């Protein structure tokens, strides 16, 4: 069953295209990290979360400066190379300073048949104005999709999609529980592939496979794995390189939990099943945890959240994966570092770009970190 997860994450372009050919359904790419995929799912199309591509940026640099977000560079590069032609639609959002301008480039160079852009606001006050505006944006997406497909997206369909998504999220949370209970039961790269596959393949199929896998893992004899327990944090919008996950383990560390986007952040919260499904998705959007530095929450501190999580799972340190040129994380990082230092939690910062910056340099840093947390 891992094979299917591998197939999607080894070559998402081909796997999704094959699914599209077989199902005769349409595919809509959604920009990370907050768009309500359930609305697209309820329209009968497959929402797939856009990903960091599998080759070096080339043509994209004719449109995006090198000192810009790796996710933006990747999506633009893929789009202008024609690699995303299988997407019938794309949905973008105002999430950060940089992401808000990506659709301009897409529209000018590789516009899909359906395109939408949501002005999703920060959640600071959770005020009436912001919630009302968010609701209007979700309704705008719903109306746009209805016009594109010619099919009504009823509340009933939305509730069903929420149910399917909640189910998948709860299974992923169960997988993480198992990892916390039995560190090392799956390799870091496998966990990453499972979560990433959930963003690429139909949730119904993913959940079926995941149910089987969980059932097997629950029965499987577990031998205590050796290694220092670490917590992975950050990596907003993009997935970390699989080689990085391998390196952490090869150096004698075990990832026991994370708050990365292609990880716990993606499936942390459910939407409630209520009579008002759009309202339920709005409420989900306004949930303040895991603290999201791009969403603008000031009452809670990401550093406090990390300290609590690290203590809870018994990790001995934190590996911060900072997506290069990501202002929300860049601006927050110094405060996290102080909180962790005050709590006596060792931490190491690794910058993650579209391509690996320097594998050897990262190895040295991680090796020193491992020694710092007491390993040899």
């Amino acid at each position, binding site marked *: 069953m891992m094979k299917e997860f591998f197939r999607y994450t080894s070559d998402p372009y081909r796997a999704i295209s094959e699914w599209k050919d077989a199902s005769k359904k349409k595919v809509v790419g959604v920009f990370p990290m907050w768009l309500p995929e359930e609305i697209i799912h309820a329209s009968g199309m497959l929402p797939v979360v856009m990903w960091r591509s599998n080759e070096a940026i080339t043509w994209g640099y004719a449109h995006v400066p090198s000192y810009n977000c790796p996710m933006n560079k990747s999506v633009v590069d893929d789009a202008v190379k024609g690699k995303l032609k299988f997407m019938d639609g794309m949905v973008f959002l105002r999430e950060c300073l940089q992401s808000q301008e990506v659709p301009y480039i897409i529209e000018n160079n590789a516009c899909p048949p359906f395109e939408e852009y949501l002005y999703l606001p920060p959640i*600071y006050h959770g005020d009436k104005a912001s919630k009302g505006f968010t609701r209007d944006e979700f309704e705008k997406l719903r109306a746009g999709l209805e016009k594109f497909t010619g099919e009504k997206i009823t509340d009933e369909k939305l509730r069903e999609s929420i149910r399917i998504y909640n189910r998948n999220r709860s299974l992923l949370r169960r997988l993480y529980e198992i990892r916390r209970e039995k560190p090392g039961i799956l390799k870091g790269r496998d966990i990453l592939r499972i979560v990433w596959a959930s963003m690429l393949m139909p949730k119904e199929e993913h959940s079926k496979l995941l149910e089987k896998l969980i059932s097997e893992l629950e029965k499987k004899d577990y031998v205590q794995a050796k290694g220092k327990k670490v917590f992975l944090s950050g990596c907003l919008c993009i997935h970390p390189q699989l080689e990085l996950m391998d390196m952490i383990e090869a150096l004698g560390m075990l990832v026991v939990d994370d708050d990365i986007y292609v990880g716990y952040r993606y499936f942390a919260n459910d939407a409630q099943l209520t009579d008002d499904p759009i309202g339920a998705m709005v409420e989900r959007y306004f949930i303040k945890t895991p603290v999201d530095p791009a969403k603008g929450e000031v009452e809670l501190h990401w550093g406090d959240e990390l300290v609590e999580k690290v203590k809870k799972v018994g990790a001995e340190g934190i590996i911060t994966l900072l997506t290069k040129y990501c202002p929300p994380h860049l601006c927050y990082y110094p405060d996290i570092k102080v909180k962790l230092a005050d709590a006596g939690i060792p931490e190491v910062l690794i910058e993650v770009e579209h391509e690996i910056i320097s594998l050897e340099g990262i190895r040295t840093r991680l090796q020193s970190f491992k020694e710092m947390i007491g390993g040899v």
Partner: protein
Amino acid sequence: MSVEYKLNRLDTSGVGPLVDKHWRELREAKEKGMKVAWSSGPLFVYSYATPNMASHFMAGYAAYCGGRKMADEVLEAAEKYGELRDTCSYHRLHTGMMAMIANDWPVTDPRVILPLPDLLISGRFCTEMSHYMEAIYRRFGVKAVIIELPVARKTEDLPRIEKYVTDQVKETLIPAIEKTSGSKFNEDNLRRIFRDWKETCIIRNKCWEFLKRKPALWTLWDYGVSIAPIFYAMGKPESHAYYVNLLEQLEERAAKNIPAVHPDGEKYRLYWDGWLPWAFLGKFLRLMVPHGAIPISGRYPWEFFPYPEDINPEADDIIHEWIRVLYTSPNRLAYHDGPWGGKEHIEKLLEEYSIDGMLFFSSKTCRMWNLGQLDIIDKIERKYGIPGIVIEGDMIDSSMVSEDQLRTRIEALLEMIDARRR
């Protein structure tokens, strides 16, 4: 170069005492029992209109420090404090200054030190602006009020966003200002500021007409250093006097036929996109003027209230009036700030100011505009045949500005213009 081009600099020296006074008053505000608000983005007007509240405009402070060559020391303090270099240099400047205060670090020029704020206001055109407010809140516990100001993708979105912003301002910002200042929001004062500001901007717009002339009588840089009087010193008598004087100078130049560039005026009229490089204005000019090139117009400096006739100081809902100007007046800053409206705005400026070439300044630490710049250049070149280049750097961080790169690219642009003229 057969002709020896030199700049006939306009006398903008009046701005120095004016901005020094503004910042001095801010530094003295607490001693006078006033509250201090730090504000970023256009919602600055609301705290500015509050009589017992001194308002610090964060981008203005960055320009002030950059222009006075005080920025590098503060940026170093920020780095010592733990800030990462890829963040906005305006952000680092503020957190660096606060780190200097908190740690009592020595400072060469005490003018960089401002009083700690009682209230932070972010008009979130730029999301990173809000991130530095959040950081200050986390570190120093200062109340932060952050108002979402989305940049619009489509003009039909503008009325809906305008309503959302108005609701936020009334629901959240005004009560926070009232609570911090301890007084009811002063609408009359806001009206007075709008009236005086409008009058000054009408004079400023007359000055702009002299940029349209060929040869131009002044440069974008002259205007750049003259922004403070119509922005963070808006509505003050000395600001009005400054522009009266500027207009008189320009009228005199027009009468005597004195161009901005000696001896016979500019050879190349350039459009400048992006922030002004506050700490390096002289450096950039020295790379342009010897070729007879000068910046004439630009999107960012033109954003500072370009259509004063749009504002109605007598509007029934004066709080909403400013947001209306931002979103649904012909100015529509909230549309022109994004690449969709930006392209449209640039096209208009190119025509009005008879531009020969475009310089797109791409800040390595402020990514507000640089994602769409390459596509905008491509579209405009194809449509109008006006060449454009991107130059990389920063507004105030000298570690990110390479003179050789600037020289090579500026010369390449001028060669392209020459080639198209042949």
